[in-house]
C-alpha cells in the first residue's frame, strides 16, 4: 500500500513537470500578447524597451524562458496581471477560488446524494414503466446542452417569475454602507458550511453501525433538525448578526446556479449507479440474501447499494477534477466571479500571466485530486490493497 502510494506520487511528479512544459509551449504558441503590443509601440523609449525585454526575459531563447518559468512557478511568482495591473495572478486566484469551491462543493454533495438515491431505485425497479421514464429524464438532463438549459432556467426563474436574481454575486446597492467587504462575509459563510457539513458527516458515521433501518433514518433526521436549530441561534447572535443580511444576499444569489448545476450534475451519478447496481444485483450473494428471507429494502440498501457505491465514489472523486473545468460555463452564464470566469476572460483578453497561473493551478488541483482518487481507490478496492501487501 505504502509502496503503491510512493510510486504513484513519483509518477505524478513526472507528469506534472510534463504538464508545466506543455502548458508553457501552448501559451507560447498564442500569437501576440500585451508585451509584444507594448514593444510594437514606436513611442516607447529605448531604455524602457530594454527593461521590458529584460524583465520578462523575452530576448532569451525558448529553452531558457522555459527554465525561468519553471523556477518562477515554484517560487510562486507569475508576474503581474496585464489587465488589473497592480494585482498579481496569485492575488486574483486567491480572491476568486473560494467562490468557485463553495458553489461547486455544495453542488457536488447534493448531486451525489440525489444521484445515488435515484440510481439505486432505478436499478431496483428495472423494466418498469417508471424506470424508463426516470432514466429518459436523467439522460435528458445528462446530455442537455448546458448553456441553453441554464439560460432557459435563468429566463424562467429570473425574468418571467422574478423569484431569483439574474446572475451576479450580490446586489451592489445593498452593500453601499456595509462595514466589511464581501470576501469577509463569504469566508465566514464558508466556515459555517464546513462546520455544518462536518457535524452532519459525523452524525452519519456515528449512526452507521445501527442495525435497524428506521431508527437510523430517524436519528439522522434528528441531527439535521438539531443543525437547523443551531444555525438559527448562530446567525441571530453576536458577530454573525451584523453579517446576516449580507450573507443572506450572497446566499440568495447562489440558489439558482446551485439548482441548475445540480439538475445537470445529478444525472451522471444516477446513471452510473444504475449500471453498477444492476451488475451487483446479478451476484450470487444477493440471491442468497433473498433466499434467507431478508426484506427487500434491506437487500437493496445494505447488500447491493454498498457494493455498488465503490465505483460511484471513485468517479465522484474524479469529478472533483472537473470542477474548475466545468465552472467556466456556469460562471460565464451566471456572471459568478469565480475561477472559471477568470480563466475564460484572461484567455480572451490575452492576459497571459493570469491565464497561465490559472491553467497551472487547475493542473495542480487535478493532480492532487487524481492522486487522492488513486489512493482512495486502492484503499477501497481490496484486490489492489491485498495485491500490494503480498
Amino acid at each position, binding site marked *: 500500500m505504502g509502496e503503491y502510494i510512493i510510486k504513484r506520487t513519483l509518477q505524478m511528479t513526472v507528469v506534472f513537470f510534463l504538464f508545466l512544459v506543455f502548458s508553457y509551449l501552448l501559451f507560447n504558441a498564442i500569437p501576440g500578447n500585451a508585451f509584444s503590443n507594448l514593444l510594437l509601440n514606436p513611442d516607447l523609449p529605448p531604455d524602457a524597451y530594454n527593461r521590458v525585454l529584460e524583465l520578462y526575459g523575452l530576448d532569451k531563447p525558448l529553452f531558457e524562458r522555459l527554465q525561468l518559468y519553471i523556477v518562477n512557478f515554484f517560487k510562486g511568482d507569475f508576474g503581474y496581471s496585464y489587465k488589473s495591473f497592480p494585482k498579481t495572478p496569485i492575488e486574483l486566484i486567491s480572491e476568486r477560488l473560494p467562490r468557485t469551491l463553495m458553489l461547486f462543493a455544495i453542488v457536488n454533495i447534493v448531486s451525489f446524494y440525489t444521484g445515488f438515491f435515484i440510481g439505486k431505485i432505478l436499478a431496483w425497479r428495472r423494466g418498469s414503466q417508471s424506470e424508463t421514464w426516470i432514466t429518459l429524464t436523467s439522460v435528458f438532463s445528462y*446530455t442537455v446542452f448546458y448553456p441553453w438549459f441554464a439560460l432557459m432556467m435563468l429566463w424562467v426563474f429570473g425574468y418571467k417569475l422574478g423569484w431569483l436574481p439574474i446572475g451576479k454575486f450580490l446586489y451592489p446597492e445593498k452593500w453601499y454602507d456595509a462595514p466589511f467587504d464581501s470576501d469577509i462575509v463569504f469566508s465566514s459563510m464558508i466556515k459555517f458550511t464546513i462546520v455544518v457539513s462536518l457535524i452532519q458527516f459525523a452524525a452519519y458515521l456515528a449512526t452507521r453501525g445501527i442495525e435497524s433501518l428506521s431508527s437510523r433514518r430517524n436519528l439522522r433526521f434528528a441531527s439535521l433538525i438539531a443543525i437547523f436549530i443551531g444555525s438559527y441561534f448562530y446567525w441571530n447572535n453576536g458577530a454573525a448578526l451584523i453579517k446576516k443580511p449580507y450573507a443572506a444576499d450572497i446566499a440568495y444569489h447562489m440558489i439558482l446556479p446551485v439548482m441548475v448545476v445540480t439538475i445537470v450534475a445529478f444525472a451522471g451519478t444516477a446513471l452510473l449507479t444504475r449500471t453498477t447496481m444492476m451488475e451487483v444485483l446479478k451476484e450470487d450473494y444477493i440471491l442468497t440474501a433473498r433466499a434467507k428471507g431478508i426484506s427487500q429494502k434491506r437487500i437493496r440498501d445494505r447488500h447491493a447499494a454498498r457494493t455498488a457505491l465503490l465505483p460511484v465514489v471513485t468517479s465522484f472523486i474524479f469529478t472533483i477534477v472537473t470542477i474548475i473545468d466545468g465552472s467556466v460555463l456556469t460562471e460565464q452564464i451566471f456572471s459568478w466571479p469565480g475561477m472559471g470566469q477568470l*480563466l475564460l476572460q484572461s484567455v480572451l483578453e490575452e492576459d497571459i500571466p493570469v491565464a497561465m497561473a490559472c491553467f497551472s493551478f487547475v493542473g495542480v488541483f*487535478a493532480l492532487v485530486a487524481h492522486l487522492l482518487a488513486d489512493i482512495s481507490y486502492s484503499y477501497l478496492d481490496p484486490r489492489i490493497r491485498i495485491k500490494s501487501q503480498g
Partner: protein
Amino acid sequence: MNENIEQDLQKQLRKEAIRRNWNLFRQSKLGMIGLYIVIFFLFLALLQPFLFITGIWNKGVYDPVVGYEAIKDTLLVVECPKEYPTEKYESMKDCPGPGELNVKRLYLAPGVEVGDYYETFIQPAPPSSRHLLGTDSLGRDVFSQIMEGSQVAFVLGLLSATLGVGISTILGTIAAFFGGRVDAYLMRQSDLILMLPSLPLLFIISAFAELKVWHLAIVLGVLGGLGGSVITIKSQALQVKVKPFVDSARITGGSRWRIMFSHVLPNVAPLALLFMVFSVTGAIASESVLSFLGLLNIDMSWGIMIYLSQTDGFIFSGLEFWWLILPAGLAVTLLAGGFYLVGRGLDDVFNPRLRKR
C-alpha cells in the same frame, strides 16, 4: 473446395452473431429509443442535400447561411387612443392589436394615413407552410439550419470518435502487449491528458488557431484518444492477452503483430465501439459549447444558432420567438442523448453481467 466451405461457415457464424446481438439490443427499450433518435437526425442530415439537388428547395431561399426570403405582412394602420379603456382596447397593452400598427411608429414614412394598409417585412418570421420552423433574424430558414447543423454534428461526432477510438485502441493494445517502457510512457501520457482541463485547453487552442469542423474533430479525437480510454482498453487487452487462444496462436508461430491485430484487437473491439458511441456525445457537446461562446470558425451549427439567438437578444424574449430558441437546443440535447442511449443499449449487449437473463 474445403476453403470455400470454411469461408461459408465463417460467414454464417458472423451472420448468426450479428443476429443474436441485434436481438439482444432490441430488448433494451432505451437503446431502441436512442437508435430512432439517431436515425431521425441522420435522415434530416441527408434530406437537405436531396432537397437542394432535386430542386424542391431553391438555394437562394433555403440556403442555411446565405439564403433569404422576405416575408411580407400587411398591417392596418391605427391610431392608439390617449386614454383607456375605450370600446376597442381594454388597456395600453392591447393597442396595437394583432394585424395592426400604431401610426406613431411610422413617423419616418410620410403619407401614410390612419386606416391605410401598410406592408412590412417580418424577420424573424413565425413558422408557416413555406418555412416549417420560421426564419431567423436575417431571414434564413431555421429548418434548413437545423439540417445543416445535424450534418456538422454527424461529421464532427463520427470523425472525432473514430479517430479517438482508433488511436486509443491501438495504443491500449500496444501498451498491454509490449509492457515495460512503452507501457509506462503511454500511461504517463494518459495521466497528462487527463490532467489538462479540457474546455480551457480548447479555448487556448482556438485563440491561436482558426478552428474549422475538421480541425476541431481532429483535436477532439486526439485528446479523447490519448486520454483515459487508453487505460481502460489496456486493462481489457491485458485480460484478453492471457486467454488460452493467444497462447496457442503464439505456439503455432504467429508473429507479435499478427496476434495483436487479428486475435486481440477483435476482442477489444466491442469495448472500443462503446467508447466511440459515448465520445460522440462529448464531441457534439464540445462543438456546441465552443460555438456558443463564439470561438469557432464555422458557418452554421446548432451552437451558432443558439449563439445568434442569444446575441440578437431573443433568448430572453421568452417563448414569443420559440422557433429561434427551442429547436437548436433540443436538437443538441436529443442527438447527444440518442447516442448516449445507443451506447447504453450496446453496453447491455456486450456486458453479460448487465443482461436481464
